[in-house]
Every structure is written in structure tokens, then in C-alpha cells.
């Protein structure tokens, strides 16, 4: 068990490409940290640097109070689960799990105990003699997990371990991983591009973009108070509606605090809208023409367009400039396509960002 601390970690490739531009993250003992971001944001590179599979250009990686920058992967006391599982195809399930223990010279009797214990936890006991090619995707995934847990390492690293599974299995395994991590209480770092996985698994969520950390924190805090427009649109599905606003509108809606900003971006989550004729005091109301409807059963997404010509100038305070808006309403009842509706959101549900989207303005 150990803390993992990243201090101003940087990675520059020989070609001059800066993959990681100074990352600071502190993962406490036994915590589950999720790195999330779009592809190419550097999250996998960062994980591989913690594993020792990529060199560190600058900064320190500290595992359990020891800077490991120059230490071989084998000596970092970590275990990693790869996206493609990376099982040894020529070894049986048993040998796949035993390999890391044998390399460390553990007596065969203890190896047997540990592998059998892991197989019991992961329900792999009947297939210990099989080769990876004889297993299904979910079973291979569990072998990869087993290979990690038999080692009883200080830290688990997961590199998009569920992305090769089908949707149903992915949800099941997600819960399994969380339960297993709670039970073993091992510090974990998990990389994913799936914001739902990130939200459900994380104790600490690290949202990354372009080699930088956009926001670190508790998943719900990040959801409720995204620090940048990137985080606002990345966390939450469907994404937050973002609209540019003029200074007078900011002032009208958010009072004095908005006065400093020359212009800004207003964000409203799809679920924070209600279809109503009223304009809530201090909130906003938008007239929309319904363009598309997506029914998923328990809820419905309404895609609306704001009329360009008629709405060019906000008629009353609280009317916003043109754009497409997603509204999420419960149930399957929805207005027909082409109908003009009016949606409103209350003051407490508005998010305001600076014009470049890099800072959140608190009302």
C-alpha cells in the first residue's frame, strides 16, 4: 500500500512533441484515481510513465515515498492490466498468473496458494489449465486482473481495461473492479476515455486535455462545478450546452460578479432545463424549435434550434443568442418535431465561464 504522487511530471518525445506538460496529482493510500480525457490527451502516456514503460522527461513520480523515475518497472512494485490484456498466449491461465511470482523466486507452494485464491475470487478456478485463446473476452480480462492481484503490489495500474468488452459485460466488470479494489484496498490508477466509467469508479477524478490536467477532484464536485468549458462538455452525457453571452446579459443574470467579464460562456446541463412558459426569476428562458427527439425509455433528449433571425438580439434579459440546445426530460412524453417550445433553467443551475473557457466565474 502506498501513495502515488506526481510532481510537475513532464514528457517530451525526441521529435519535440510535448505529451505531458507538467502534471501534479496526489493519490492517497488505497484511493482509486481515474485519469479521463479524449484520445491523445496523454492519459495513457502518464500511466505508462508511472509503470516505468516510458521515461520521465521532468518532474518526479513518487510511489510510497520513493522517487521511482530511474527504477525498472519490475522493481516499482506495481501491477498493470493492459487494454488488450497482454496475456502470454503460450501459457495456461495458471502459468500466466504464476509467471510474475516465479520470476521473483517465490516457492511453488505459495504460488499455488496465491493463484488458487485469485482464481477463486475471479471465478477462474475451472479454467486454470486452459490457454488464453480458449477463453472469452471477459474471462481473459479476469485473467489479466488475476495476474495483477496475485502479486499483491503496492499499486494497480489499469489502461482502459474494459474497452474491448461489449457494453453489458463492461458494466458488470466495472462493478467487479470497484468491489475488488475496495476489498483489497490497493491504491489504483485507472485510465479511460469513457466519462461514465470515470464517474462511477473514481475516488479522485483527473480530467486531462492536451497533456495538461484540466481539473482534479471528487467526481460529483467536478460534475457540479466544472472548472473549464472543456470539463463541462466532457463530463456528463449528453454534454453541457454552452452558449456565448454578452456582458449585459451576464450582468442581468448573475448580478455584480459578472461585471468584470467582458463576455463569457454560459453553460446549462440538458437535465437542468424544464419545458415551461414561465421565465424563472434570475434564470434564463429560451424559445426553441424542436428538431429531433431521442427516446431512450426512462428519459428523452430533445434537440432544439434557436431561430437565427428572430432571436439575433435578446428580446428580454435571459434570452440567449442562437445555437443548438439539448434538453433532457424524464419519461417518453415529448413535444412533436417542428413545434415551438420554451425551456427555462433556474439561476442555481447556470454555469458561467470566461470567454476563453479556461476559468469558471462563480456567481
Amino acid at each position: 500500500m502506498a501513495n502515488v504522487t506526481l510532481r510537475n511530471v513532464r514528457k517530451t518525445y525526441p521529435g519535440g512533441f510535448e505529451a505531458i506538460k507538467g502534471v501534479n496529482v496526489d493519490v492517497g493510500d488505497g484511493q482509486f484515481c481515474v485519469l479521463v480525457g479524449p484520445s491523445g490527451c496523454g492519459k495513457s502516456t502518464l500511466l505508462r510513465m508511472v509503470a516505468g514503460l516510458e521515461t520521465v522527461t521532468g518532474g518526479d513520480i513518487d510511489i510510497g515515498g520513493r522517487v521511482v523515475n530511474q527504477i525498472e518497472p519490475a522493481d516499482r512494485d506495481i501491477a498493470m492490466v493492459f487494454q488488450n490484456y497482454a496475456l502470454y498466449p503460450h501459457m495456461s491461465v495458471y502459468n500466466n498468473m504464476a509467471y510474475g511470482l516465479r520470476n521473483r523466486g517465490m516457492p511453488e507452494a505459495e504460488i499455488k496458494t496465491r493463484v488458487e485464491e485469485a482464481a477463486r475470487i475471479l471465478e477462474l478456478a475451472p479454467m486454470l489449465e486452459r490457454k488464453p485463446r480458449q477463453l472469452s473476452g471477459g474471462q481473459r480480462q479476469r485473467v489479466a486482473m488475476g495476474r495483477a492481484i496475485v502479486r499483491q503490489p503496492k499499486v494497480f495500474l489499469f489502461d482502459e481495461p474494459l474497452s474491448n468488452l461489449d457494453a453489458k459485460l463492461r458494466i458488470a466488470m466495472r462493478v467487479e473492479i470497484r468491489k475488488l479494489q475496495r476489498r483489497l484496498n490497493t491504491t489504483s490508477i485507472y485510465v479511460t476515455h469513457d466519462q461514465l466509467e470515470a464517474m462511477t469508479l473514481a475516488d479522485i477524478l483527473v480530467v486531462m486535455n492536451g497533456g495538461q490536467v484540466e481539473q482534479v477532484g471528487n467526481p460529483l464536485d467536478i460534475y457540479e462545478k466544472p472548472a473549464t468549458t472543456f470539463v463541462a462538455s466532457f463530463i456528463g452525457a449528453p454534454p453541457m450546452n454552452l452558449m456565448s453571452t454578452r456582458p449585459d446579459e451576464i450582468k442581468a443574470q448573475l448580478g455584480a460578479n459578472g461585471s468584470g467579464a467582458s463576455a463569457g460562456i454560459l453553460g446549462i446541463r440538458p437535465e437542468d432545463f424544464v419545458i415551461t412558459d414561465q421565465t424563472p426569476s434570475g434564470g434564463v428562458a429560451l424559445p426553441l424549435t424542436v428538431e429531433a427527439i431521442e427516446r431512450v425509455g426512462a428519459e428523452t433528449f430533445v434537440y432544439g434550434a434557436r431561430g437565427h433571425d428572430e432571436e439575433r438580439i435578446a428580446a428580454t434579459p435571459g434570452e440567449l443568442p442562437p445555437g443548438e440546445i439539448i434538453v433532457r426530460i424524464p419519461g417518453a412524453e415529448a413535444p412533436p418535431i417542428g413545434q415551438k417550445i420554451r425551456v427555462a433553467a433556474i439561476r442555481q443551475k447556470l454555469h458561467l465561464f470566461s470567454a476563453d473557457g479556461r476559468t469558471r466565474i462563480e456567481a
Partner: protein
Amino acid sequence: MQKQSIFQSKLLPYALVAPQLAIVLIFFYWPALQAVIQSFLLQDAFGLSTSFVWFENYVELFKEPAYFEAIVRTFAFSFAIALSSLSLALLLAVMADKPLRGGTVYRTLLIWPYAVAPPVVGVLWIFMLHPSLGVLSRYLRGMGIDWNPLLDGNQAALLIILSAAWKQISYNFLFFLAGLQSIPKSVLEAAAIDGARPMRRFWTVTFPLLSPTIFFLLVVNIVYAFFDTFGIIDTMTRGGPGKSTETLVYKVYTDGLLGGNLGSSAAQSVILMIMVIVLTGIQFRFVERKVTY
């Protein structure tokens, strides 16, 4: 799922395979059949009369101690050539597989020897190791080695093995490199995290995963050593000194074309043909089974 083409005409599919069949029939089955027929015939020294003798040519062949020596010699050569060219090629491929500056140049250079024809290989090595002309021979003698492959049978054998193996390294290198590159990088990374040092990683992960390639190449190399070394032997030693570098293929040539014993030569060809069929059969059987993990 198998793709199946539907032809309107019944003749068209036959017409399409006809050229391929014609080539195989004219250049393989017909000469092979000729050899089989020839192996049952006995001609007098002047070629005036020919008689059908059933298996007499074969019986005579197996009574001849020189034939057994040639068999043993051929197998010894083949294993020596296969082993040395395979292991050297694997070593080179493992090194070339690492990310290198100018790696492509290095790889291209390593592939070049394969483009050299076997007789040219022979000439090349003769230039280096000929007892009186050879560039390297001077140094060898300088080191106190009595180097004379024209007189010493063992040295001649070594020379043949060396040059035949050298030529085959390129081919093996190419396959090993492809084999190495097809091993997922993450599997080796997993092994590194699992605490396996580079040498152990090679022997417990890389080598077993390469085993289908190794087996395939082993058969290819043995077949190469059996047949394609003819050009090298012919330019370098002509089977000599004595018979110390006379392999089965070279014996077919000396007995038939130089010795005029066409019946025995044909019988030897047929035996060689059977050996290749067996080797190829083994290869198909095992490669089919082992190649997929």
C-alpha cells in the same frame, strides 16, 4: 466464410487454371515422371541398349558405402547450416528489432545477401578464403593455422557450411524480424512488469512465441541445404577434396552427368524427391497445428 465465385460458363474456370497447371505439369510432373522411369532402366556404357531392371538401381545404390556417407554428410551439413544461419539470424533480428537510429538502412543491408546467387556466393568466399589467393587466408596462416581447404576435407566442409549459412541468414533474418514484430509489445511490457529480466523475457516469452517461425525456417533451411547448396559446392570445391563435400545433390550430378550412370542418378533423384515430400509434409502438419496461438 469461404468466398465462392460463380462462373456462367463451365469452361472458363478450367481455362483460368490451365496456364498454372501447364507450368506445373511441364516443369515438374513430367521431369519427375522421367526420373522415376529412368530409375528403373539400365543403360550400357555406350548408350546403345537400355533394359528395364526394376529396382536394381536402388539395390545397387544402397549397397554402395559412398552413398551412405553422402547421406550422413548431407544431414550433417544441413543441420550445421540450418543451426548456424538460424541462430545468427535470430541474434541479428533481435538486435534490429530494437528502435535504432538508421534501423532501416541496417535492415536493408542485412537483407541484401539473399539477392546473391549461390554460385556467386561461392566465388565471393573463395576470394576471401582461397589458400593462395584468399584475403583472409594470409591472416589465418599468419595466426599459425594451416589453412588449405583444397587439401583438407574438414576445412572444405567448414567453408561450404560457412558460405551456405551466410547466404541464408538474410532470408531467416527477414522472417525472424517479421515474427518479432508480430509479438504484441504489451506482452513483453507485461513480462517486464512481471519481473522478467531481458534474457529471461527472451527465453520465456519471445522464443516460445517465435517457435512457429523457427520451425518453419528450420524446414526451409534444411531443404535449402539439401538442394540449393549445389551452386556453392560446384564453384568452391566440386565435391572435393576426395568426396569430403559431396552431398546427395552433388552426387546426383557427378554420378549422372559426369559418371554417365543415368539409372543410378535417377534413382538418387527419386530418393531426394521423397525426402522433400516428407519434409514438406511434416512442415504442413506441424505448422498448421502450431502456428496459431
